[in-house]
């Protein structure tokens, strides 16, 4: 049996069977499973479980022996080093994301069976679900850039239809429509980029394009293509200013779908960005690209977390945290260093686990109570203790508390960004480190608020007879919780066995090209090999940084505005708000007027201008959102032309 996994001729068919199988089963469900529940569930589990098993079967070949699997559709092999057919190419980077995709979809399908059981037209649901999983898996495994575009489009359609699946609610339709408009603009940008790229290279194979660009260098057309595709994939990974449809869609979709959206669909955009910058254009040596990615990442994480603080819906809050965590990943991969890339990938993996877990908990709360509004929830820890434990594990992970996995990856990210700043002497990286630290603190604050609002505090009378969710829904939650703890405790194991080959694959462009097209085509590309494991554990630099921050805070407090307290008191007397009366009014009060969902009202009050501005920016108008995409794209194109050429 084990022989099979070491036989290249057998193993090379696995990726294409996994992708095709998912698409085939999607239509089988529509034919046979529309009426019968048992057939439908069996087919779904076979398809997602089978795909997961096939992708797992690639591990000995790709991670173990360091091979790159190349498969040509219809056996149209390259002639004289020139690609003709459509190729699938699975190196360690593709496999890493492929594992995350298939694992997430498998867990989500287990969860769906119970969670979706109260909805109607489930045949369509599972058809779309399998279409989505097939397209995301195809996207990360393919070696052909137009195939990637087609997969992106299928992904967008399936995502939109699933977002609007509960179409009894107006907001689901509205979110679906916005998602479709912005997603289509993003796909159009990618397609325009591909067209310009084809004009220059006359091929669609990624390895071949990489080899041609490596030999000829960049010209204005290629830079333009790069900028367009960069913006297009940016829309797919929901970095600010392209993030607006994500927050709506994650909120309106069923939780099992929010989990795969947040866990994998935006990660597919991140994968495409890594492929674009590291493999196809080999652009990570250009400082402007690094700075652009780090800047976008820092802005994304800051705006994501501050918007999350202002939310009153459980799932919308999680959606903004999801955007914020993608900012960490983008920042880390934008560094272009070995440590940066491995920390970014590690955080992407951890984010899939803990954010998936948190969305499943939100789904469990919705299943049990029928609402996700933070103002209506409270005190559920007594009624749903097991869900509460899972939620706490997820919340600790995302907030970066040791020993959970979020701590390990965030710690690596701080170090890698800081090291890059020291290395290059550029203050922007140091600033990004500070932003990352501040955002982590705000994430913790935000999750204290959610925990207080949903699981602790007073139990509203309406929710007195809430029950714990069934075992079939808890099982994926326990698995994800276990993974969160395991990957946090054994981070060293993950680094050596998983991240090291993946990082080498991302940097080893030469190997990627030669295994697809033969050695000659690879000669032009540069090859950066990276041997070191993460060794940067020097706490002295950190002590200095913390000392500076502490000193700054002390100076502000001691020398700053002496009238701070007085001003607030005056304001309080003018306010008719009950919240202030609790603290400044002087009357005896039996309970606090500050609800759990509004725990940080003081913070929000102090930065009222900022929050008002940001909430105004998220106006809900699809025109505004489209305008942000156009402006963001224009800025990216302009940056590329000014600094890269």
């Amino acid at each position, binding site marked *: 049996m084990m022989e099979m996994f070491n036989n290249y001729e057998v193993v090379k068919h696995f990726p294409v069977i996994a992708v095709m199988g998912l698409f085939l089963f999607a239509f089988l469900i529509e034919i046979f499973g529309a009426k019968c529940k048992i057939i439908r569930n069996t087919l779904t589990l076979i398809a997602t479980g089978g795909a997961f098993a096939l992708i797992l079967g690639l591990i000995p070949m790709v991670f173990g022996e360091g091979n790159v699997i190349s498969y040509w559709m219809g056996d149209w092999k390259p002639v004289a080093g020139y690609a003709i057919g459509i190729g699938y190419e699975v190196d360690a980077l593709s496999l890493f994301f492929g594992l995350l995709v298939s694992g997430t979809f498998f867990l989500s399908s287990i969860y769906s069976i119970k969670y979706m059981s109260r909805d109607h037209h489930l045949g369509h649901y599972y058809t779309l679900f399998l279409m989505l999983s097939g397209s995301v898996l195809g996207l990360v495994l393919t070696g052909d850039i137009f195939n990637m575009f087609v997969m992106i489009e299928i992904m967008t359609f399936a995502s939109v239809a699933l977002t609007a699946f509960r179409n009894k609610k107006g907001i689901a339709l509205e979110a679906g429509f916005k998602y479709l408009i912005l997603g289509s603009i993003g796909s159009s940008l990618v397609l325009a980029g591909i*067209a310009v790229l084809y004009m220059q290279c006359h091929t669609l194979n990624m390895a071949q394009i990489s080899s041609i660009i490596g030999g000829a260098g960049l010209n204005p057309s290629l830079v333009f293509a790069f900028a367009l595709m960069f913006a297009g994939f940016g829309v797919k990974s929901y970095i600010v200013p392209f993030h607006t449809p994500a927050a709506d869609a994650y909120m309106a979709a069923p939780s099992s779908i929010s989990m795969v959206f947040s866990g994998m669909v935006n990660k597919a955009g991140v994968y495409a960005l890594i492929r674009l910058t590291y493999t196809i254009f080999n652009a990570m040596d250009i400082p402007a690209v690094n700075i652009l990615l780090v800047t976008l990442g820092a802005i994304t994480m800051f705006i994501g977390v501050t918007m999350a603080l202002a939310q009153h819906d459980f799932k919308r809050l999680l959606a903004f945290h999801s955007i914020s965590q993608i900012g960490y990943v983008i920042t880390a991969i934008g560094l272009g260093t070995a440590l940066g890339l491995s920390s970014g990938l590690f955080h992407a993996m951890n984010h899939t686990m803990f954010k998936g877990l948190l969305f499943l908990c939100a789904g469990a709360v919705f299943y049990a109570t029928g609402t996700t509004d933070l103002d209506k929830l409270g005190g559920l820890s007594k009624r749903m203790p097991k869900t509460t434990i899972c939620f706490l594990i997820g919340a600790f992970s995302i907030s970066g508390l040791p020993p959970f996995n979020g701590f390990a990856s965030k710690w690596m990210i701080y170090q890698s960004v800081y090291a890059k700043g020291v290395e290059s002497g550029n203050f922007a990286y140091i600033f990004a480190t500070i932003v990352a630290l501040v955002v982590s603190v705000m994430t913790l604050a935000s999750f204290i608020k959610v925990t207080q609002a949903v699981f602790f505090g007073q139990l509203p009378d309406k929710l007195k007879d809430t029950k714990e969710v069934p075992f079939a829904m808890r099982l994926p939650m326990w698995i994800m919780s276990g993974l969160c703890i395991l990957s946090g405790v054994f981070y060293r194991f993950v680094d050596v066995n998983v991240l090291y080959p993946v990082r080498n694959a991302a940097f080893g462009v030469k190997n990627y090209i030669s295994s697809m097209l033969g050695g000659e085509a690879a000669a032009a590309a540069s090859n950066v090999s990276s041997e070191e494991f993460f060794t940067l554990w020097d706490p002295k630099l950190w002590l200095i940084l913390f000392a500076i921050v502490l000193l700054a805070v002390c100076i502000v407090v001691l020398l700053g505005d002496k009238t701070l307290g007085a001003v607030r008191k005056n304001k309080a007397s003018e306010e008719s708000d009950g919240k202030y009366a609790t603290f400044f009014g002087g009357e005896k009060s039996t309970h606090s007027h500050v609800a759990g969902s509004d725990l940080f009202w003081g913070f929000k009050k102090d930065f009222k201008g900022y929050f008002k501005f940001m909430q105004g920016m998220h106006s809900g108008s699809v025109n505004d959102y489209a305008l942000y995409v156009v402006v963001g794209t224009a800025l990216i194109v302009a940056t590329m032309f000014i600094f890269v050429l």
Partner: protein
Amino acid sequence: MIIVNYIVSVALIALGLFAVCTKKNLIKIVLGLGIIDYGINLMIVSIGYVPGGTAPVYTLSDFANFVSVSFVDPVPQALTLTSIVIGACVDALALSLVIMIYRKYKTVNADEVRRIRG
């Protein structure tokens, strides 16, 4: 002649983006998306064009006799076909969503279809 194609395609893309960003009617926004698609399709078809080229069909005798064959690049045409199909799907899905939105909200004005915000 081909330069005209590029100018028109860029103009179409710009026009489509303008429509998506400024028009308040949801159906007009969907039309704007369609126009962006047409612009890109025109650009892709123009890439493969060779002046004086024939249809990309040739026989082995052409090569055996060293007849210089000049034909247009077939790959962009295939890409355009795929892209047109995808564009049709986008329009269909978007318009069906607009119909559903109209039933729920009783309006197709983008300024009123914004219950999710902030």
